[in-house]
């Protein structure tokens, strides 16, 4: 049954009623009976079987141990009957040459004292000492640790001089080895140790900082790693830095538990705690550690991943990493509970009053316990509180994630920070650094618009999705050529071009008539007359009348148009293309592409003609006449002969004026007649205008890519100037 709001109110009213009144006491009793009525405390006396099984579990072991010791001692006594003698003398000394008859049974030290030096002539020690006296060393051998067991004095007062630890040669070489291993894993950014965290969408926090992809250490920094850093500093005689960075183990005593004295002495020194997170470090020490690591990276020659910095994370980077990609997660494993269905704890915190070890960890646990979250990060909440910086807030210093002394509320991802502003070392604060690499971006950023100022690196999937959209668009408009953006050299300068589409042919008479008819129908203004080509410029009557209107010339490039008309045509084309794309998107339920159409700039024209700076001669990158077998000798473009050049038989079909737009051979990008035929309008960087590419009425030298512009500054209609628009995708 669904609960109505009235039910909730009645619920609340029951809670708020005063149970000291007699009327309400009856209410309480009935409710408690209904809830707890059937429950009973089971006080039972254990049966004999239970008792015995209880005994067996605890006391049998003690009994067995006692029996074992007794039997070994007994057996030892049997084996060495003359045990007492062998304690002081080797066994074969029994074979003395002269034994006094009195002392046949018992032989003790005292009898040796009583013996005269004459009575026993020899006290030979046998040569093979394979029966050695039993000593304490044999019974209790020393444990040799491979890793140096160096106790760093923490109990010395600050006024006294600090006794720096002294490393032997073996310890120093072991430290160097460990340093090498750490550096190797950092340079490779191994998946076991460093998790890649990709920002899937544009995330801006309130202050305007945009998040970048980064790599995060999977576990908190451990004792052994911090030790390598400290010993490395020591070996370089940086004693002042050592004192700053060294952890202050006295802080363990502030916890107020009985076991902290042992922790104070052993937590950082003993090798059993190597994989536990380092605590009691100050903020300055942590920053030194990060600088040390980034210094090592900068010196090494194998920085292939282009690691730039290693630092502590910002608070929003930490939350993004802890959430595992899902904004609604309360805990790194989801939530809302701290125990799973089997009752096992999922983090190391302070679960129950007076029982801190109910979850398996009295203080800290090893850095890679419990399950990792979706990004592969261990112990984001609980264990140790991790240092973060707050971005442009009043107190920049804080921690996130809660520690082993915090209740369940404080180990949530978005809980308030119990350690805000704490700079001093504490036994429940550790750290976890992040690694920032150089951006691997700007592949298709230009196609989507001017997004170069954002610090987002596209994921590969996003790149592929965008690529698909662009290729779909290209498939639908096959009369355009795609030019990938990039850098190329122009006159000893590096130029950058964003990707764009360029029309493969110049604008034809047919295209332009569409535009003019659209103006006539839709606007019904004088604009159609204004933008129409000026038929008086030809000088030949037939062309004046028929060039623009006759169907035979529909595929010829439009000329004799003003600059305004060309720009108006581009605007019209933009509107039409956006409408087409929107219709397509609505049909297929995809995102609509928005475009921008314009005249090309000088550099874009050069990029299109010369294939991004590969050629610097003619656009078709060869001689004026064709070199191939089939079309040998034929002209490659439409231009004007110099009077000195001899004509060829094959040139009989040379056109008088312009040629159809698909004639001659295209360049490597598939663009036709970018050199010759009609000159194409371009915009220069200064703001001036012109038309490049040479025309049917100009000699061949004007067809070179870097030739002079004979039409500079001309905006009036000219019979040699046409145009070719470019398209840029905005979204």
């Amino acid at each position, binding site marked *: 049954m669904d609960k109505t709001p*009235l*039910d909730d*109110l*009645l*619920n*609340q*009213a*029951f*809670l*708020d*009623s*005063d*149970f*000291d009144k007699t*009327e309400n006491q*009856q*209410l*309480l*009793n*009935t*409710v*408690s*009976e*209904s*809830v*707890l*009525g*059937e*429950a*009973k*405390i*089971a*006080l039972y006396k254990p049966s004999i079987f239970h008792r015995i099984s209880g005994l067996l579990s605890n006391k049998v072991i003690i009994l067995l141990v006692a029996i074992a010791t007794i039997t070994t001692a007994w057996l030892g006594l049997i084996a060495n009957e003359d045990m007492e003698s062998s304690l002081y003398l080797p066994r074969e000394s029994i074979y003395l040459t002269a034994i006094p008859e009195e002392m046949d049974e018992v032989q003790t030290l005292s009898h040796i004292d009583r013996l005269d030096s004459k009575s026993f002539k020899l006290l030979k020690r046998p040569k093979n000492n394979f029966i050695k006296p039993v000593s304490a060393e044999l019974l209790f051998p020393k444990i040799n640790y491979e890793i140096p067991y160096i106790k760093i004095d923490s109990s010395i007062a600050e006024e006294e001089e600090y006794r720096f630890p002294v490393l032997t040669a073996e310890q120093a070489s072991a430290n160097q080895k460990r340093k090498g291993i750490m550096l190797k894993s950092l340079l490779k950014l191994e998946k076991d140790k460093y998790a890649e965290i990709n920002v899937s969408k544009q995330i801006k926090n309130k202050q305007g900082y945009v998040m970048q992809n980064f790599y995060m250490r999977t576990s908190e920094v451990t004792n052994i790693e911090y030790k390598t850093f400290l010993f490395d500093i020591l070996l370089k005689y940086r004693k002042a830095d050592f004192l700053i960075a060294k952890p202050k183990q006295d802080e363990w005593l502030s916890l107020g538990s009985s076991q902290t004295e042992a922790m104070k002495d052993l937590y950082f020194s003993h090798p059993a705690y190597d994989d536990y997170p380092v605590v009691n470090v100050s903020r300055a020490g942590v920053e030194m550690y990060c600088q040390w690591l980034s210094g090592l990276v900068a010196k090494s020659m194998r920085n292939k991943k282009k690691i730039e910095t290693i630092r502590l994370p910002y608070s929003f980077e930490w939350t993004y990493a802890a959430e595992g990609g899902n904004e609604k997660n309360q805990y790194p494993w989801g939530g*809302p*509970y*701290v*125990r799973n269905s089997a009752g096992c704890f999922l983090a190391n915190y302070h679960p*129950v*009053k007076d029982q801190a070890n109910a979850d398996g960890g009295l203080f800290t646990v090893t850095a890679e316990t419990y399950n990792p979250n979706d990004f592969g990060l261990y112990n984001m909440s609980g264990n140790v509180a991790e240092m973060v910086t707050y971005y442009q807030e009043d107190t920049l210093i804080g921690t996130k994630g809660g520690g082993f002394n915090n*209740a*369940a*509320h404080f180990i949530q991802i978005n*809980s*308030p920070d119990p350690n805000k502003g704490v700079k001093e070392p504490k036994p429940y604060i550790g750290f976890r650094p992040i690694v920032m690499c150089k951006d691997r971006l700007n592949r298709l950023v230009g196609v989507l618009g001017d997004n170069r100022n954002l610090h987002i690196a596209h994921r590969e999937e996003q790149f592929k999705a965008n690529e698909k959209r662009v290729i779909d668009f290209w498939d639908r408009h096959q009369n355009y050529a795609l030019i990938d953006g990039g850098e190329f050299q122009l006159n000893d300068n590096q130029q950058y071009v964003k990707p764009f589409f360029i029309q493969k042919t110049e604008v034809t008479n047919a295209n332009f008539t569409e535009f003019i008819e659209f103006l006539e129908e839709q606007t019904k203004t004088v604009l159609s007359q204004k933008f129409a080509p000026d038929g008086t410029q030809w000088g030949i009557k037939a062309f004046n009348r028929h060039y623009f209107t006759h169907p035979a010339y529909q595929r010829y490039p439009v000329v004799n148009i003003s600059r305004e008309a060309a720009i108006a045509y581009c605007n019209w084309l933009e509107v039409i293309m956006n409408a087409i794309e929107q219709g397509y998107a609505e049909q297929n339920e995809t995102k609509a592409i928005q475009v921008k159409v314009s005249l090309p700039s000088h550099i874009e024209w050069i990029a299109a003609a010369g294939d991004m700076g590969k050629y610097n001669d003619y656009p078709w990158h060869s001689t004026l006449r064709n070199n191939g077998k089939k079309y040998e000798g034929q002209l490659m473009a439409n231009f004007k002969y110099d009077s000195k050049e001899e004509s060829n038989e094959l040139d009989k079909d040379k056109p008088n004026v312009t040629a159809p737009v698909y004639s001659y051979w295209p360049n490597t990008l598939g663009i036709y007649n970018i050199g010759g035929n009609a000159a194409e309008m371009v915009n220069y960087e200064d703001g001036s205008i012109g038309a490049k590419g040479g025309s049917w009425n100009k000699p061949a030298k004007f067809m070179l890519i870097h030739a002079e512009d004979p039409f500079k500054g001309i905006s009036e209609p000219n019979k040699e100037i046409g145009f070719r628009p470019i398209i840029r995708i905005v979204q």
Partner: protein
Amino acid sequence: MIKELKHITKTDRDKAVELIFKAYSKPLQQYAVNQWQVEEDLIWDIIYKSIYKLIEVFNDKDFEHEAQMKAYLFRIFINYLKNAIRDKNTKQQGMIQVELSVNEEKKENPNESNNPQLMQLILILDELEDWKRVLLLLKSQGVSYSEIAKLVNKPEKNLKVYYGRLKEEVKQRLESVNEKNKSHG
């Protein structure tokens, strides 16, 4: 039974906790989850707190029957629940939780709450007759009709009908009061 428990609380505190926990924790948890939809972690915290409180106070109080002890434990539990829910609703997360004992909470006026509708409901409930109020409150906590009939001197069969009618009456009263407030303010 209670004497033995007293003995155990003096000698072996952990065992007493264990016994009480085994007996009473599950029904308390189910009650809290079904009625209040509180997080499990919070509920376990509250259950532990109330058990510890009971053991502290065990020797001072003289319980005659087990039912008395149950009622007392339930009362402690409800008090902690009330505070936890209030803290949640007001979202005063920076505040430190102060453990109030049962006696100190008498000073707080239980009728004070931020919810104006609640205040109106309580006023309406006070105006009703005794048995009607009892019926409404007990039914909201999930008590069966047979047990209610023991308190209220009405036949069991009629209680369902009475309950439905009472609910409608209270709803209408609340709505009329709301309209009055809207027209005034």
